[in-house]
């Protein structure tokens, strides 16, 4: 274990932190939207898959290098599914006549997905492992 971790840079720790945030986002999303018709299952599952893959890749020799990319890709695709699931609601609130104003579920989930997107975009440029000498 020590050997596997000793070649990791701080970027990998950011990836791990983002993995946790991905899982939190997925759980929050599931809790808030479970049972509603704008719940998108891929949007809930992909961040968890991405997080698991990112963590798992850390234990594979050389795999840590692409952990950030895998996590970012999963989170991004999850975001697309999230948008697909909720766009109608958003469009109505923005331009329609009937709708409640943006509710807290929407605000919280959107904020979490947005943070993930931005953090992942930065993280993909961070080195995950030290260069082999």
């Amino acid at each position, binding site marked *: 274990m020590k050997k596997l971790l000793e070649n990791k840079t701080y970027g990998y720790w950011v990836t791990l932190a983002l993995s946790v945030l991905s899982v939190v986002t997925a759980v929050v999303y599931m809790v808030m939207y479970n049972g509603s*018709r704008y719940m998108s299952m891929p949007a809930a599952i992909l961040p968890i898959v991405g997080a698991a893959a990112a963590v798992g890749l850390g234990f594979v020799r050389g795999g840590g290098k692409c952990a950030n990319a895998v996590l970012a890709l999963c989170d991004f695709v999850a975001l697309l599914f999230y948008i*697909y699931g909720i766009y109608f609601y958003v469009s109505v609130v923005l331009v329609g006549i009937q709708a409640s*104003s943006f509710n807290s579920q929407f605000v919280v989930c959107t904020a979490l997905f947005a943070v993930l997107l931005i953090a992942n975009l930065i993280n993909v440029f961070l080195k995950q492992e030290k260069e082999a000498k």
Partner: protein
Amino acid sequence: MKKSLIQRILAVILTLIFGISVLGSTIATENETMVNNALGVTPFKVEVDPDAASHDSEYFKSDFDNLGDLVKAGASMTEEVMAEGAVLLKNENEALPLTAGTKVSVFGVTSVDPIYGGTGSGSVDTSKATSFYAAFEDAGLVMNPVLQEQYSTTWNTAPNPGNWRGEGAEAYDPAIHYRRANVGWAGSGGRYIGGVPWNDVTAATGESFADYGDAAIYILGRVGGEGSDLPKTGAPDAYNGDFLHLSQREMDTLKGLKALKDEGVFKKVIVIYNGASMVGADFLKDPAYGVDAALWVGALGQNGAVAVGKLLTGEYTPSGCLSDTFWMDHTMNPVNVNYGYWIYQDSEAMGILSKKGNMFVPEPTLDAYTVYQEGMYLGYRYTETRYEDAVMGAANVGDYNYADVVAYPFGYGESYTQFELSNFKAVKNGERSYDVSIDVTNTGSTYSGKKTVQIYVAKPFGDYAKKNQIQVPSVELVEFGKTSVLAPGAKETLKITVDEKFFASFDAYGAETYVLMDGDYYLIAAENAHDAVNNLLAAKGADASRMVGTGNAALTAKFTLSFDKEKYAYSDATGNPITAMFGYGDINRYEGRGENHVDYYDRANWAGTVSLDRENGVPVLKATKQMAEDILKQCPVEYNKPLPASSGTYPAYGKSAGLTLVDMMGVAIDDPLWDTFMDQLTWDETVKLVANGQHITALVESVGKPETKDENGPNGFNQAYSKNTEGLAYRREKAAGHVDADGKLTAEADPNASLKTTAMPANGIIAATFNRDVAYRAGNIIGNDGIWSGCAGLYGIGANIHRSPYLGRTVEYYSECGTLTGLIAAAESKGIEEKGVHVYNKHCVINDQETARHGVGAWVTEQALREIYLRAFELPITIGGAYNTMASFARIGTLAGPCDGTLGQKFLRGECGMQGIIVTDMYTDMNGAQDNSPYIELLYGIYVGGCDIPDGTAQDFQFDAYKPSGSTGSNSVLADAMRLSAKRVCYSVAQSNAMNGISKGTRLVPVTPWWKTALTATQIISGVLLALTALWIVYSLLRGKKKNA
């Protein structure tokens, strides 16, 4: 820059572009109709077979050879409507007309900011509208320039309304904000009357008054529209918060003008009321305000102001008659006690959920109710009936002083000249007609003018009525006629035919159909509703000293009829029996009423049933489990109340017969050929037809069914003539080579093509003309506008009832009287329909308030529902040939308009013979479920026959569960209903101007919209580049590994 960094940047950017374009494309394709509409894209083109090219395919022809002539005719029509519809309320000492060259001072913020239309669907184009200033100047009045300058600049200040939701709105500051303003959606965030403090007016402009003192003209204004009702209380700058009371500034101004008149600065004070909603008019009767003349002009429309100028100067003589009662004070109108919404007691416990659906004014959609407690006694039917009973000394009349209640009665309108009505005759002609004739003589010596004669019926209020809870208003309008322009001394004999069916009353409890009750009926010629009662009282020999005004018995004719429950028990339009079927809307008859009971107004007991107590006078209703069941079943998916399965045979799908829609033009809807035609459609095409209706009906290219454009609104289309490529304006320009490669008009195009269509004055003004020919011709202009602008459907006209003056959308509807509404709307519908534009008369029915309109349950007696509210929709269909209706958001009892199969199938189609489409009101999301839940779901509406298409887009996947497998499926009843709805859409379009330009042999060829091409190209390019980048990265990694090795 390092290669790996470049690779990462490329990968990130391309991944983002690819992902977003895939998502965007998916969403846009799902909502193709809306995107096309928003971008003005027509998704098909017409390819004309060479053999068919010579065929005349302009099935509905415009009356105008060129657009310029239509534009002029439209402007002139709006002027004519106002010239005949504006109502002269008072004219003491012949204050009006003014002579040309009169020097006047024009006051009021509305003088510079006229009200042309309403808000929301009643909004109209103001770009070519004529202002008061321009109109007055053209009429020859010389206006005080100092006042004009101040109102136009210094005082033309309003708070920033913020965005469309009212967010960011500037706080209203009465010290600096003088101009009228709405904040938020239709004023839901604040509605300001505005006005300049009188002291400021006199300080800044007082010295100029003497030079322009021939008359002071004070223009008052109130605006309303879709989205919210007018506040009874709480309006920020209104007197006691009452939006329809004069504000303090308005009272100060009027009193200030009176004082100046007393000082001799002004010779007279003239009030113009520019608003569709009736203000409390006690000030016009109060000497303290000193108003000499008053003119009601409603909302102006395009050129209404021109007519107002000419009315002031006598070029036109007023001949309009009020389409609503002008109350002295709205606290005297008992309907206002029950106007709004209340929540059922125990609603949560009984299972009626509390769900709010409106983001602007979050209001309940399931658990709100209102009681039309007045029943038949709405407007003049209340004021005049109680008056008659008071004069006749009937028991239980209670405290009622007519003079304190009514300022100007329904039908009232003065003229610059005088008319005499004489030689009244009414003779029964055949089984059910009464031929009425009356001489109208202009007895004045100076002015020519037109005169309306109104015919009212007075029915017997005898034992049968009392026993069966039939309410009988004192007088009810049944017909009217209007003379041509009569010169002084000239006489015209008006001949008017009255249909006896208006004598019948709906008997919900006894015969359960329309009945003629035994007893004396009077036909009465009158100048207004109050005049009619006075004539009736005179005929009955009432004590004249107890009357307000005088009556003339010679203008009445009595007919004694026997009881008959057969004669009007069958529909004239269809022959179907007319039976009591709206018991579910009357809380006293609804089977799930529990212990609820309401005492509706009862003529035999005014004192015991009418309340003016707004706090405690409202009936309290308790929720029941049956109510909850009936409300929630309208959302089968949302509340897990699945439609009952049915395993019958589905209709045939995809069975080719070589028919296209053009082959079906003129084919009767019950012709079996329609079945052959419809069998050609696939299931998916059927779903497409019934699931799409966002101001369109959907394209089905396989059967040559074009996409139609169906646009708002009740006061005319509000869009550019060249907006739609199907329109004559666009097609003409295209043929002339005035359309560029992007589809835009070139500089050589007729500038009229960029103008917007005609804006009609308020429908209340059209009704006030009491002239069906004017209404018909106004409709014809709208129809011509439809041909030129490419619209085959009009989301209008508005046939709801002015139940309360506080109704937000008064501008869109006609009157407090269902019969006047129906007769005028029938004429206007006829004019529109003749041009192949199908009306969607809205909102059927009882959408008589904006407050909580998305689902408020209205409890109303069947008699009132039929004789007032439904009559307004019935007559446009049976007389005017109206094809379609738009359903109401409101519920009859528990059933929302689009989910009310009794209303849709048994009444509109079964009784009225309506053959076209029922569209829902705006069908959009309330809770993200992509249908109208928690309020209604389209599937249920179609299933029960309450609607055919949404005014929106319902997601196709909702229909997937019912898709056929072979000739069967899980719900054959729904499949049959969907087939019927799709057929109605096709039938309606086949008889519309959407077929113009399509002849046999022509094909509708789908066109890929440019935005789709752009999105697809983005996906392909970004996808390919992304793949190449990925390959590059892999190649680099492998190469690096190799190097390291």
